[in-house]
């Protein structure tokens, strides 16, 4: 495949160059750029939340190699279950499966069954770029445009033998080009949706204690702006 072919979008590829993301995620990821690969580390809900915005706008999504994917949670976050393809057990053929899906399916969520080789990574990255589709990888991916990870997470709603899980407050860090950004989110909130959990929300729920913030992260990265907004 020549370099020229990589840069030229194939015929019929839609022209809008970003896919929507949920409003709560916009401070982290303004929009999913078509043709990029996003790697997500930590948790089953973050990749689903990332795909929810595009799916709600009418994009087709596919989930490859994740038989444990909670479709109900995804649908509560905004993923349209009528536009969702599940390929639970692609086995060793996942690179082929993903390459087939990229293009007609605009967002592909992937958990590789084995550590991807450099060749596979390069080939699929080029494939995504060529077809203008977004590949969201649960796990490491060399040369990902954006890496998202959950830096800290705390569930609320459970007491000592009473209550039930209500919502989870997480700090999500996005690393890509430029400074890392961080945002506090309800992932999910008591209705199963994704909502922003800025400082105002924290003060309202005074009992919430933050734990486990990793020292390497700038917690204040983009927070003031987000709180002001």
């Amino acid at each position: 495949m020549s370099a020229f072919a990589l840069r030229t979008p194939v015929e019929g590829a839609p022209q809008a160059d970003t896919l929507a993301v949920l409003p709560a995620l916009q401070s982290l990821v303004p929009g999913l750029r078509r043709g990029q690969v996003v790697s997500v580390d930590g948790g089953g809900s973050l990749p689903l939340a990332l795909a929810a915005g595009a799916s709600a706008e009418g994009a087709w999504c596919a989930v490859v190699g994740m038989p444990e994917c909670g479709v109900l949670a995804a649908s509560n976050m905004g993923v349209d279950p009528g536009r969702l393809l599940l390929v639970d057990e692609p086995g060793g053929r996942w690179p082929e499966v993903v390459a087939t899906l990229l293009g007609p399916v605009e967002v592909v969520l992937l958990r590789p069954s084995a550590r991807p080789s450099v060749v596979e990574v390069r080939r699929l990255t080029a494939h995504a770029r060529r077809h203008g589709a977004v590949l969201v990888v649960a796990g490491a991916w060399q040369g990902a445009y954006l890496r998202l990870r959950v830096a800290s997470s705390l569930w609320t709603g459970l007491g000592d033998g009473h209550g039930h899980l209500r919502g989870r407050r997480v700090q999500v860090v996005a690393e890509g080009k430029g400074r890392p950004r961080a945002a506090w989110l309800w992932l999910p909130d008591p209705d199963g949706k994704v909502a922003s959990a800025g400082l105002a929300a924290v003060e309202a729920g005074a009992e919430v204690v933050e734990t486990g913030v990793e020292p390497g992260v700038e917690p204040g990265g983009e927070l003031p702006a987000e709180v002001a907004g």
Partner: protein
Amino acid sequence: MSSARTLVAWCPDWPVVAVGADAATPAAVVSGGRITACTAAARESGVRRGQRLRDAQRRCPVLSVHAEDPEGEARCFEQVAAVVESFCPRVEVVRPGLCAVPARGPARYFGGEQVLADLIREAVVLRGFECAVGVADGVFAAALAARKGPAGVVVPVGEAARFLAPYPVSVLDVARTLPDLDLVGLLGRLGIRTLGEFAALPAGSVLTRFGVDGAVAHRLASGLEPRPPATRPPGEDLTAVMRLDPPVEQSEPVVFVAKSLADELHANLAARGLACVRVEVEVSTEDGRSRSRLWRHDGLLSSTAVAERVRWQLDAWRTDAPGSPDALVGGVVSLRLSPDQVVVDSGRQLALWGQATVDDRVERVATRLQAMLGHAAVTVPMFAGGRGPGEQVLRVPWGDRLEPRLSAAGPWPGRVPLPAPAVVHPSPVPAAVTDAAGQPVTVSGRCEVSSPPCRLSVDGGPALVVTGWTGPWPTLEHWWDAGLARRAARFQVTTDDGRGWLLVVDRGRWRVEAVHD
């Protein structure tokens, strides 16, 4: 109209046979709470057709109950119909379990009605189905003749009325041609108990008193045919075949051939005003084996699209592991496209509103992946009813239309509350839950927790510290069905790594059903 000689092949208790029940064990098929068919063993215990399920179970507590499956019955009966068709081409499937053929010609060919009946019965029995064959004037009399004796009888020409006379009027529903069975009860109340008595009534009076249905029943009872058998025409061979000599190793020439074959197939179908629901692609190779796969067609695939599917199929088989039985080795020697389920092409009308149309490109991708990985490997989610998160979503293979057995609308008291977990294990993962003293936490029959859970270890992994917990939420499901019965308690637990867990404890075993991650 005098009735034509008719041969009827009857497979007793077909609905039960079709669901795969063993005739030696008591089993029954139920629809709407009533028994529609049962095995001989069940009949010995007093189970009867039309009985209510609870009455049947009272008489025969070990009765194994199956839901009615009309499509499965019809599909399974095709095998029997095919066997009968190999003797005489014009088979009418009266209903699954009973098929009729005009007997005159074949009987002359095979050397007598009794000989023909024996031949057909043996062929069906060899196929693995119990069968009885009757020959008489008309389908109704032949169906009763098939039921008489261990293997059916041959009623001589013109003897149908005399043969039918001693039967009670209740056998009229055997023909299943009567829309309402009240007639049978009414005749009973009028003191008419046998078909002979009914047939003795003047036909005109029966018509004025009981209407058209009554007249039809009267014709049946008199050994006359209500209508000639509606046979299906012998299947025209619309298959398109191409032999390749010398054998072809590469896919491209085969795909090229497939394109022209598909053109031929479509032209043949269109000339007869037909469409096929599915098309079967069969590829034979040098080693003498052939592999086939069915593709949904619905009259929608162009010949290029058919050729494309042949290419996917070849690619999928070529790339299969060399040792696997499906792997394609050697050159292709012949390619065959045959239409499956040919129907009259009545056009295709799209709904004006509310019909979800699937993007063609997505449709193609999904079908292609199914060729690569198998039909069930590509699924779409469908919401169904249930309490646990795993039960609330079904994965339906792409292209199949299934209705969930349980409605998602509920009510489902005791359903695990929102938010739904993002990780739902397809099969629960074993876990160990211990208290502060390191002892396993147990739940008593009265839902008392032995001590608060303190540590959680999943699948033998490192112990996580429990920061919060709630439960037990007992569930007692399907207690009426020994196979599905389940008594369990659910817990929600949070651990110090920021994850939430939905645990289920069932007979002292802890398992992780889902993770809030």
